[in-house]
């Protein structure tokens, strides 16, 4: 009888939020990203790990169309409209998408914030970009978000140039999440932060992702961060994805020689 066992095929017929197929990008003869394919579903966090120069950031920039891919396709299933092809999207539409349904957290918060204007304005700017006009409401929301990312409300009128690196990173996250995006791309969100600040940021991100049912793609070279935040993992090496799967399976039972090297190279305190 055991021969006649029928197994279920897939989790209910859910469609992916983001569908990436055969994405490639070269700089001259250098293949920065080559033949990359994956799906991302709603409420899911995908980690991308690999050494520096493996193409992680290039991939992230291709995904938000900040860089033009040579070949391949990225289909985003937007909330309101029909599925959108991101490759070759015109600039106006791309900006509209990045403001409303997507967020991008830069590795260096100075690139993702306006350093000269107040923290409140940094958060409020994105709200205004999607149509908010009432000053009181905007300020209230900005205050609420400062609470969420554990920045003292009293600092709402201070410019982020007077903030510490960890605070700037948290402010950048608040600025990105205030418009309730569905997808957020993060490039080394904890890079350059000392460990106590990192723990605080990770704890906060974990909470926000599950609370808001966000989908996220997190690029990191820190495997502990990847384990904590992501459901699934892509391992990149020299521009290609050498392994992908369930986060703990990839980290505990890596199959590819490079993944094994990566996992075995980590010092644990």
């Amino acid at each position, binding site marked *: 009888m055991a021969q006649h066992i029928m197994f279920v095929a897939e*989790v209910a017929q859910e469609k992916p939020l983001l569908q990436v197929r055969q994405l490639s990008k070269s700089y001259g003869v250098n293949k920065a990203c080559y033949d990359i394919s994956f799906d991302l579903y709603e409420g899911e966090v995908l980690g991308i790990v690999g050494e520096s120069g493996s193409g992680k950031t290039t991939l992230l920039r291709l995904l938000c169309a900040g860089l033009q891919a040579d070949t391949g396709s990225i289909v985003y299933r937007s909330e309101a409209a029909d599925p959108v092809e991101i490759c070759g999207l015109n600039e106006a539409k791309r900006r509209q998408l990045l403001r409303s349904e997507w967020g991008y957290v830069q590795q260096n918060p100075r690139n993702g914030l306006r350093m000269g204007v107040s923290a409140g304005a940094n958060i409020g700017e994105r709200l205004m970009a999607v149509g908010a006009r009432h000053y009181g409401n905007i300020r209230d929301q900005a205050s609420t978000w400062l609470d969420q990312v554990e920045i003292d409300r009293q600092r709402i009128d201070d410019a982020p140039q007077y903030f510490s690196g960890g605070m700037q990173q948290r402010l950048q996250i608040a600025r990105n999440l205030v418009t309730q995006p569905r997808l957020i791309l993060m490039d080394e969100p904890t890079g350059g932060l000392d460990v106590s600040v990192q723990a605080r940021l990770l704890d906060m991100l974990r909470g926000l992702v599950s609370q808001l049912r966000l989908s996220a793609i997190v690029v990191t070279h820190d495997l502990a961060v990847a384990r904590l935040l992501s459901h699934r993992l892509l391992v990149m090496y020299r521009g290609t994805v050498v392994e992908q799967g*369930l986060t703990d399976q990839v980290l505990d039972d890596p199959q590819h020689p490079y993944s094994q090297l990566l996992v075995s190279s980590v010092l644990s305190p």
Partner: protein
Amino acid sequence: MLSVKNITKCFTLHQQGGTQIKALDAVSFRVKKGECLALQGPSGSGKSTLMRLLYGNYKAQTGTVAIVLPSGQLLNLVTASPRQIIKVRQYTIGYVSQFLRLIPRVTCLSVVMEPLLQRGVSDEDAEGRAAALLARLNIPSNLWTLAPSTFSGGEQQRVNIARGFIASYPLLLLDEPTASLDAENREVVIKLMLEAKTAGSSLVGIFHDPQVRDAVADQVLTLS
């Protein structure tokens, strides 16, 4: 509930000259609803490897691990997609590992509540159930709102057990759940396991303590 056929697991260490280590060779067994299987064998015989395979944490080369989903359908864990495994872990298979994985700043109560929250139980309800279980496992209430990193080994293990038992799973995997517990707490854990069996859960466990094994196991599988 669980049917394992001809499971083989071989590790290839690419960074160490491609050394092959055969951990499991054609292992087969079945566990019925409400039954407990104890895994036995000297250390290095593949007990923990087998547990991890059953949780989808390790990848098997050949064989099938068939598990009955709440819907009544069967799923083969060896070929299941990552998303299927995540879902299975949420509702079908629980795992009490030997050591608690510590996350900075996350309190004892949150660690225990998490499986319930993932199933959509309200905060209040989850917290009530977590508190009751922690009390039953003799964790002093002044520790509940602290992060368990400073707890003793036995306390951490009991927090881990509370996390494993807070939600009911049709299949529960237990890796030496009583290893660092005193006699009194061991009794509590034995009771929890027996209650889970009575409620219809199947258990697979590694129990070095013969007293615990005799109290809960219906069959024993010896690996070599």
